[in-house]
């Protein structure tokens, strides 16, 4: 038997780490190739990790709930019949043996002299450790390759159980700094942070109540998208008003903390005018970032320069539930903390606050980052309206009965999707994104509609591709399937990418109107409110009618208020007389 280590594989572009959600195997268990051994949550999705080979699990290097960097040794297998193969993680005390042989040199030179020049002690530094440390510290601390870091930083890494080799250095020449090590230990690598900005990876938004967003109790909010109810929103926004000057560099130096701040504020570091220089390169301070974020959304300029193209296909959107009740309490403080520091403050006051501390990571952090990015990038204009849904209610009832026979549960959502895609074809700017780098507006030739789904982990936005080409029944089936898999965390990242417009249903939980945040870099988002009996004027008389209220936000860079109103009118028309939809 021979030991082989297995590192956490690449989880997708720009993803540096994942949270180990669960082990599906135990130490000592034998596995076959491709058997799923663990579930790891990234910023974007839950990923199943298959075993690379057949063998017995010798060691699981992380505990559930821990953050595992990509490429970190994750599992050690005992593999049969590979005698003599190299074992990657075993210490061999090389240095000790490395001396010249006294007997050989005996009659000649002095052994010491022969060996001293340039003896690299780090060659010794392989190895396992044991005893007192447990967990990842066991395997991490001493890198086997050459890692550039000062002694104090190496010592810190050992203390925090960080494998230096897995840390990307942000110092001069790629040297690993204390801050890099700390960030790594916190599960936020500076690199990952900046990577997120660059890819503009998707995600969520929420409506005005985004603080509530969070982990909305799945059942409450969990939204029955099916039920015509309601919930959240999301939506990207693209580019930035070019009002503030942006720097638009390829490379920017900044401390990891600054990168994180930039990321939090949805600011691309390369766009921030630098107040200092290091190593001949522009060096951005936290102050620069805050000023930039506050002084105008210009920040995002640079961001969108890379974003739009990529984002449109990358965007795994997440969305938050609008419900006031949801898990608001918990995360709200964090969100506001971020906000505060974006303005003027330092956020230090939050640091000092007592109360339960919930790690800000995974889907939650992605939602937050995306909301901030969208909000700081796209000037949002909101539009609210209401229509008589009597016919819609009747039509759905009729169709639902038929669909039911075929085992399909038809909600209002497919009907709204139909109406929206029809209207989008007439108003292409609502189905567009801003490609800021090329100063072009991309009028998408696909109608990929994102549907906000509340899950235990926060909101996700699976995308119905080519929704315009699909019939009501197919839409109903797809929505149901996607929503279910989003909640079970079985959805694949690519199923949450490529959206061109998002619909959220706030009606399920309650409320009438919202100000949804656009799912960046889309141009608009549509939030359905609940359908219920309300006073309605018909022929100069107030009567009770089933009506639906809805809200929209559009990116004012792409769409003016008048167009938003015209689009909204068209959607209304189609839903007031839904039989028209049959013609679509």
């Amino acid at each position, binding site marked *: 038997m021979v030991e082989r280590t297995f590192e956490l594989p690449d989880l997708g572009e720009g993803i540096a780490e994942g949270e180990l959600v669960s082990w599906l195997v135990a130490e000592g268990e034998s596995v076959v190739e491709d058997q799923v051994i663990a579930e790891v949550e990234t910023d974007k999705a839950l990923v199943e990790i298959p075993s690379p080979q057949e063998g017995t699990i010798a060691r699981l290097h992380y505990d559930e709930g821990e953050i595992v960097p990509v490429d970190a040794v994750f599992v050690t297998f005992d593999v049969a019949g590979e005698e003599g193969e190299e074992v990657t993680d075993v210490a061999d005390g090389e*240095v000790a043996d490395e001396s010249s042989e006294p007997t050989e040199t005996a009659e000649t030179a002095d*052994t010491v002299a022969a060996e*001293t*020049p340039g003896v690299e*002690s780090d060659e010794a530094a*392989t190895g396992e*450790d044991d005893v007192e440390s447990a967990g990842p510290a066991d395997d991490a601390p001493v890198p086997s390759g050459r890692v550039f870091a000062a002694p104090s930083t*190496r010592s810190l890494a050992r203390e925090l159980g960080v494998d230096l080799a897995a840390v990307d250095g942000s110092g001069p020449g790629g040297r690993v700094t204390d801050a890099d090590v700390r960030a790594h230990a916190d599960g936020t690598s500076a690199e990952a942070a900046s990577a997120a900005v660059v890819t503009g990876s998707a995600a969520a938004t929420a409506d005005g109540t985004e603080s509530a967003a969070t982990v909305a109790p799945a059942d409450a909010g969990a939204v029955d998208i099916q039920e015509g109810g309601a919930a959240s929103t999301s939506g990207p926004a693209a580019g930035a008003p070019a009002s503030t000057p942006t720097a638009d560099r390829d490379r920017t130096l900044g401390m990891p903390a600054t990168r994180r701040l930039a990321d939090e504020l949805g600011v691309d570091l390369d766009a921030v005018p630098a107040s200092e220089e290091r190593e001949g390169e522009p060096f951005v301070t936290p102050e620069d970032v805050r000023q930039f974020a506050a002084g105008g959304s210009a920040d995002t300029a640079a961001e969108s320069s890379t974003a739009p193209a990529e984002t449109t296909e990358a965007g795994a959107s997440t969305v938050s539930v609008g419900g006031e009740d949801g898990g608001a309490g918990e995360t709200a403080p964090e969100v506001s903390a971020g906000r505060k520091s974006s303005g003027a403050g330092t956020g230090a006051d939050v640091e000092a606050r007592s109360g339960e501390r919930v790690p800000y990571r995974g889907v939650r952090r992605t939602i937050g980052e995306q909301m901030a990015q969208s909000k700081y990038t796209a000037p949002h204009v909101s539009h609210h309206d209401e229509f008589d849904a009597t016919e819609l209610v009747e039509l759905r009832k009729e169709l639902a009965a038929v669909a039911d026979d075929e085992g399909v549960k038809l909600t209002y959502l497919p009907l709204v999707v139909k109406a929206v895609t029809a209207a989008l074809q007439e108003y292409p700017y609502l189905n567009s994104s801003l490609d800021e780098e090329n100063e072009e507006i991309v009028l998408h030739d696909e109608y990929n509609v994102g549907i906000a789904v509340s899950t235990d982990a926060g909101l996700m936005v699976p995308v119905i591709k080519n929704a315009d080409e699909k019939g009501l029944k197919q839409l109903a089936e797809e929505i149901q399937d996607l929503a279910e898999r989003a909640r079970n965390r079985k959805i694949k990242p690519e199923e949450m990418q490529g959206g061109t417009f998002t619909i959220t249903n706030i009606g399920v939980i309650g409320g009438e109107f919202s100000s949804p945040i656009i799912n960046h870099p889309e141009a608009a988002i549509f939030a359905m409110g609940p359908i219920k009996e309300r006073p309605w004027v018909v022929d100069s008389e107030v009567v009770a009618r089933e009506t639906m209220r809805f809200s929209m936000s559009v990116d004012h860079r792409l769409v003016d208020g008048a167009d938003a109103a015209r689009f909204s009118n068209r959607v209304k028309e189609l839903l007031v007389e839904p039989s028209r939809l049959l013609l679509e």
Partner: protein
Amino acid sequence: MVMGDIATATDLLVIGAGPGGYVAAIRGAQKGLDTTLVEKGAFGGACLNRGCIPSKAFIHGADVAHDAANAEDIGIHADPAVDMSRMQEWKSGVVDQLTGGVEKLCKANGVSLLEGTASFEDEHTARIAHGGEGQGMETVEFEHAVVATGSRPIQIPGFDFADDPVLSSEDLLAMDSLPDRLVVVGAGYIGMELSTMLAKLGTDVTVVEMLDDVLPGYEDDVQRTIRSRAEDLGIEFNFGEGATGWEDTGDGVVVSTETEDGETAEYLGDAVLVAVGRQPVTDTLELESIGLEPNENGFLATDDRARTDVENVFAVGDVAGEPMLAHKASAEGIVAAEVAAGEPAALDQQAIPAAVFTDPEIATVGMTREEAENDGFDPVVGEMPLRASGRALSMGESEGFVRIVADEESGIVLGGQLVGPNASELVAEVALAVEMSATLEDVAGTVHTHPTLAEAVMEAAENAQGQAIHTLNR
């Protein structure tokens, strides 16, 4: 347990009080461990008593005499008389001061000192045999043990240190009078340091070396500088010859040698110094009782925490492997003590510097250009010859250089090779740079005092970036 034994318990038992052991003991005590240090000979080990310190003391004495006698160029005419027994006394004073200091430091830090020879009984028990008659034995029970038993000079067939004319480095450093003629076997660093020192004090030195140059393992230009200076001092080199035996002819000692091809030669001296290397000391310990065995080179293998295969037993210093240097021993001692105290220490140094106190001195740290290439780097090298250094010239020196090796892409300093006066001091800056992963720009951007030799380090870093002021850039 033998009747009459005294048994004591300790957290950390350190065996051997050289630079590996005494440092481990002090650090262990600082970390709150109840620490016991056992030494069978003299506190301070080989380094303080018969190695680094005495040799450097004599080298200094020889330099003073030699410099004074060779200063006509600058208008000084002198013919110093060297009183070897006085120099011996002075050296002993230095050694006593230092070894006394080690004892005091140990006590002040709360380390219990024991005199005697320690051997293992089992993984948690050691027996200490006290020297002298009727001194008896004692038992120490320990949680962790650090083996720091050091090394001793290697003896080669035909040359027994018990015979009067056959000297080890230790014997030589204890002599009250110098031989007129000395044959030195081995041109490694100890052989070269002592040969140079003796030549300066007036001894006729003949060096026999099996390999084809001095200081095997060093780069060509380093070897060349040292060899030619040694030749200027009158040292005669015979490379490619191995010493096979000696004979007392009445007129002196005749040392016979043989080449690989079987050609023989004979060299005459009043004594023969055998300096062919040192071997780890593991035979005083009864390692079998804890199931530990030296590896094929005689060392105790350790991991990156200085632990041997027996989990609670550490090994540091010369007994734990190359490089056999005092500062490496101390660095390992610190790690062993900290690990024993439950701290996450590790032997993760980027490089261990090394100095040779020849004339001029040599010091190296980290990688040479070739080593960097072999390691997969794309190295860039900068150099400053000392003939361009105002300070070197004003000290009457023009030979030597400072060379700095860096990774071209990142500019991070990977190593340095220095030849020149005080190279052993200058290397500290390069060592810091390597350890900190400093860049060439960091070194060059640090303002250096003028006029100093240290400026050459800055200049070499500039040269590596193609912008040295005082030398032509490559």
